[in-house]
């Protein structure tokens, strides 16, 4: 059973560690703490303890700064194992005191694998200092932990980790401290984790030896901490830095009872273990709920972005269909290509004549053609770039209205604009598209599908004609509009109409348009991916959530 449970726990631990909960939602901070707590508890306590049920009881002495934890440990052990003093916080490196024969249990990385071990000399901050002492019985180790509430944040984190690794807590508070808010949070955590708990009420002045313990008992009861041993130590002058045996007696007695009774120790270990495992599903459930919320919010944020960029694709598509890309400069260039100057405008001519003229012009002056190509390029680029800007602005605007999105944007204000690479990428894509169209025309030309009239324009001319057809074809660009927009002549118009009327050109234009829209979608998707990347880095993914559910179920079944 225990291997099953170990495997299930390891799986739960990995599943928990993989769940990202970094979107700013109400309660997200709490959920993150629960998650990290769970991971630490599995790593530092549950797995090591399951592996070796016969290891000594690890009793962590925890509590507020200045409550006298080190003094208490020193007094119990009978020698200065942990430095005590007036400076707060006193204990910066945790000190583990145990019987010399028990040392082997703690020297390897079985418990608290993240902490380096030191022995002898003065302990370094951030290491676990091991002190063998025969004053302690076999099977019981005392760990003096740093305080839980001093200004040193790393102390607080370390204390948290140590408390998570404990088989039992010996929680030290004082008559001045017992109503502090921070220690009570830890007591609630002990209750939630199922850890065995004893409370030492230290430094109780003689005039308060009834009132304060009674009040503390009452508070413990009110908060659901029943069955907690309350050990009262009266305030007294320290003798040689230690609490005299008289006031210490209640704690000493409690410790001796535990030390003498191996059965009681095993019972304590089992109780804490059972309590801890039993508390896992509920706590993992809290993480699960937070993950569901995060997933839902991420989904909303994602669909905001999708909507903004889908709108941008529609914007570009509408611009392509409206025929507006054809107006103005593009048509003017078209007229230059077909060579209708003022003189030509005056002459009505048959298409065939123009075609001949066009062919000669195309062979003689490729620059007009090139300018048309550039004009097409510029138009398409301008539309895509503006659509990209609009999409980024729209997405950012919607995000800013959600608290979670607001926080994401505050970290990445550049999301409010189109990415700097969009311009260059657009230029590349539009040029690639033009190459694609020319290739298409070349292939079709080789297969002789195109009408002779269009084919006679040459690959470049026909390619350009196809591009114009892309912009004009479905847009219902009427002859009148062409006249208005371009001040065009009937020549260019007739040629254009002839080209647009060609079935082969229409087919090619349809394919060219599909290709262009695909490219636009890809470009904008890449820009939208910046938003998604932020989300992916912050929110859980669906697999992690599913795995967490499955792992929680597995723990529930195995326990």
């Amino acid at each position: 059973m225990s291997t099953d449970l170990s495997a299930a726990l390891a799986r739960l631990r990995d599943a928990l560690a993989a769940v990202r909960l970094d979107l700013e939602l109400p309660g997200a901070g709490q959920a993150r703490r629960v998650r990290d707590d769970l991971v630490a508890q599995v790593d530092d306590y549950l797995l090591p303890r399951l592996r070796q049920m016969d290891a000594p009881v690890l009793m962590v002495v925890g509590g507020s700064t200045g409550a006298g934890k080190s003094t208490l440990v020193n007094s119990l052990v009978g020698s200065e194992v942990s430095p005590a003093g007036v400076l707060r916080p006193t204990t910066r490196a945790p000190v583990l005191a145990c019987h010399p024969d028990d040392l082997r249990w703690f020297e390897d990385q079985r418990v608290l694998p993240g902490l380096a071990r030191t022995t002898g000399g003065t302990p370094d901050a951030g290491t676990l200092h091991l002190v063998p002492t025969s004053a302690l019985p076999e099977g019981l180790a005392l760990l003096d932990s740093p305080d839980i509430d001093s200004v040193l944040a790393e102390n607080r984190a370390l204390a948290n980790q140590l408390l998570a690794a404990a088989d039992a807590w010996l929680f030290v508070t004082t008559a001045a401290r017992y109503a502090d808010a921070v220690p009570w949070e830890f007591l609630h955590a002990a209750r939630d984790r199922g850890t065995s708990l004893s409370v030492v009420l230290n430094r109780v002045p003689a005039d308060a030896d009834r009132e304060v313990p009674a009040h503390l008992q009452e508070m413990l009861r009110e908060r659901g901490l029943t069955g907690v041993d309350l050990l009262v130590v009266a305030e007294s002058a320290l003798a040689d830095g230690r609490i005299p045996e008289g006031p210490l007696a209640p704690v000493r007695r409690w410790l001796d009872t535990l030390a003498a009774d191996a059965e009681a120790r095993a019972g304590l270990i089992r109780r804490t273990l059972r309590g801890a495992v039993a508390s896992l599903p509920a706590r993992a459930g809290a993480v699960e709920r937070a993950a569901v919320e995060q997933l839902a919010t991420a989904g909303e944020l994602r669909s905001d972005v999708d909507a903004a960029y889908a709108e941008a694709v529609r914007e570009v598509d509408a611009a392509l269909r409206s025929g507006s890309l054809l107006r103005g400069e593009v048509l003017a260039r078209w007229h230059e290509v077909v060579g209708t100057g003022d003189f030509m405008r005056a002459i009505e001519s048959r298409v065939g004549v123009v075609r001949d003229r066009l062919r000669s012009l195309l062979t003689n002056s490729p620059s007009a053609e090139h300018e048309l190509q550039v004009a097409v390029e510029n138009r398409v680029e301008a539309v895509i770039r503006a659509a990209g800007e609009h999409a980024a602005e729209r997405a950012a605007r919607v995000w800013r209205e959600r608290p979670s999105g607001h926080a994401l944007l505050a970290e990445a204000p550049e999301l409010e604009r189109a990415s700097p690479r969009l311009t260059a990428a657009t230029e590349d894509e539009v040029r690639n598209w033009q190459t694609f169209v020319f290739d298409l025309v070349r292939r079709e030309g080789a297969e002789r599908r195109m009408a002779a009239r269009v084919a006679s324009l040459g690959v470049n001319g026909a390619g350009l004609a196809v591009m114009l057809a892309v912009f004009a074809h479905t847009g219902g660009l009427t002859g009148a509009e062409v006249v208005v927009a371009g001040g065009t002549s009937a020549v260019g118009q007739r040629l254009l109409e002839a080209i647009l009327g060609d079935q082969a050109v229409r087919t090619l234009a349809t394919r060219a348009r599909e290709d262009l829209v695909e490219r636009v979608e890809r470009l904008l998707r890449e820009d939208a991916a910046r938003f998604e990347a932020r989300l992916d880095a912050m929110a859980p993914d669906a697999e992690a959530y599913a795995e967490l559910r499955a792992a929680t179920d597995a723990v529930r079944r195995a326990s």
Partner: protein
Amino acid sequence: MSGGLDARLAALGEAASLAEGRLDPAVVADAKAVTAKAGARLGLGLESTVVALAGPTGAGKSQLFNALTGTELAAVGRRRPTTSIAQAATWGDGADPLLDWLEIPRRHRLDAAELDGLVLLDLPDFDSVEAAHRLEVDRVVALADLVVWVVDPQKYADAALHDRYLRPLASHAAAMALVLNQSDLLLAPEVATWRRDAERLLAEDGLRDVPLVVLSARTGDGLPDLRRLLAARVAAREAALTRLAADVDAAARALGSSCEGSARGVQRDDRARLVASLEDAAGVPAVVRAVDAAHRRRGALATGWPFVRWLRRLRPDPLRRFRLPETPQPNVRTSLPPATDVQHAQVATATRRLADRASDGLAPPWPTLVRAAATATERETADRLDRAVAGADLQTRAPLWWKAANALQRLLALAVAAGAVWLLGLAVLGYLRVDDVVPVPEFRDIPIPTWLLVGGAVAGIALAVLARIVNGFGARRRARAAGSSLRKRVDEVAQELVVAPVEAELDAHSRLCAAVATAAGDRKGLSSMLRR
């Protein structure tokens, strides 16, 4: 000093109203709260000095309160937390309005010349399980002139004190003091170590200058030191001003957190690009072409050869086709083709480029604000451009010489007609063989009617050709003039819809930062703030 504070408060108020809707609402609300609070506090006079005793549970605030007042007013107990409601002791008269403002109903009046003007507050703890106590402490700590933090050997390094209060109030060193109470629990050498460690922690919090008093409220040891400190502060009557100055400073710093960097301002080429894209969108080239064509057409109708010029009427007048008014009428809608998607896109891109480059170098959120200002009126652009075009002077007045030329053309046409009729008459007479009866006057051997017909026609055509050439020049000149009139009006639209809002935003930035600098009090404060 109050005068200086008034100016700084005014600057903070200005900065807050400029920041409204632009910067983090919480920071703006804080700044406004500071100005409101300062107004209220200054209105209550500086005769009284409000000193609050704040500290963790069990540190002996109430005991200290009793020791200072020489009473047993505050309940001292073992049960934690002991004090749950703030109470006040006042030395001298006139503190009631102040206590009303502080919303402290429990008050006691004392007399002692030394501390006359002191209002001493005993506060609940801020670290017990009673969350309501914390709220009360937060409220009063924000209002008191001097906050005396009372700690004991157990709790002087608590995160609840340092992280929650001291570090955030790092700018308030002058409005705080720290009391290390219960020194009787330690031995003398331990007290010295304790004091040094407390000083170290204060320095880490950025509060090096906070006065520190070691005492025991129980034994009265060290109490005179605190009494002296309070007496000095009360006598100086400056604690309130010092506190408010620190508040103003902190609020100004918070408002000025986005003040580093300076804007490049609107760049000339960006503006030119924007105007060009707007011109294109407004159809300026089409209108200029129409002006040119219209002038040629009208000129031809006025000065062309009368026998063929009516043909021109068959083509529409380009200006009328666009429904462009003859005289500037900004409220008339034209029927110019609406701007295309491409033109909209180009205007949008040029606008954003202008805004982004103008705000280059500013800290967030200013670039966003500038861009929002530039694009706020995007939807109005088309309408405004159309009105700008309709309101432009398109130079459609007919030149005076057209009338003269027209009269001459009519005269010549008349001559041609007369010659033709005359020759026709002669032809009839010739047919009837009586042409010798009527003598035909001649000029240089050519009959006058022939002169009239041929000469009139040649002169008329020559005049028409000449007028056409002149009209060509005129048309080009008018097109240019109309173009520059249009460009000027489009430029005004660009100025009004994009450039001015952008500059207004940049101006708001510089005014806000200047106000913040004034509110922060000194150059040094500003420069250290900018360095941050």
